[in-house]
């Protein structure tokens, strides 16, 4: 069964450093998403991406965040200058047109 994959599974970084989280969506899906979940809190939407551009973004997705689809398979989330409060689990998801979003296993980001 096709699935969303994410790398790395864990990332530790120093405050102020840039990180890039990578995702490979399900191959025939057209819509891509990033969510985050701070420990013990709810899953929060960050951004959605369709047709090589951002479709929707939340208030969390400020100028320090960016997304890119650098090739036909990868979808990346960049955090330009990490803060302590960026420590969270980051989930990538993908969907076909009918909104059923399938989540990857996540990247656990720890900012020290």
């Amino acid at each position: 069964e096709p699935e969303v994959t994410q790398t790395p599974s864990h990332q530790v970084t120093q405050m102020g450093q840039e990180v890039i989280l990578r995702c490979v969506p399900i191959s025939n899906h057209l819509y891509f998403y990033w969510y985050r979940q701070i420990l013990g809190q709810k899953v929060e939407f960050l951004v959605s991406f369709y047709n090589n551009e951002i479709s929707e973004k939340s208030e969390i997705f400020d100028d320090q965040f960016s997304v890119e689809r650098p090739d036909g398979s990868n979808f990346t989330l960049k955090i330009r200058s990490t803060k302590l409060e960026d420590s969270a689990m980051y989930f990538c998801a993908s969907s076909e047109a009918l909104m059923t979003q399938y989540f990857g296993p996540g990247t656990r980001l720890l900012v020290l």
Partner: protein
Amino acid sequence: QKEVEQNSGPLSVPEGAIASLNCTYSDRGSQSFFWYRQYSGKSPELIMFIYSNGDKEDGRFTAQVDKSSKYISLFIRDSQPSDSATYLCAMSARGGGADGLTFGKGTHLIIQP
């Protein structure tokens, strides 16, 4: 501001009984409704989706949506210890793609053997 409220639990149900989970939402424009299951430290796993008012059944799971009261439910029949997890309800405003989901905080369900 879209809000989704769930009782965080824990909700304890004996094995074989029906587990009943629910949540309320604030956005009257919500069109699509989802239930995800999340095991500790893992990603959300889709269980059910429902795009309209009424009921939808899939195996041991039944989802219900009441848009007039902005209330959605999930029933798990013949509950098993492996059903023990956190159940997240989620919704989106539109019926098409690229719409971010708004999640509740989740209900922690414990199935007692």
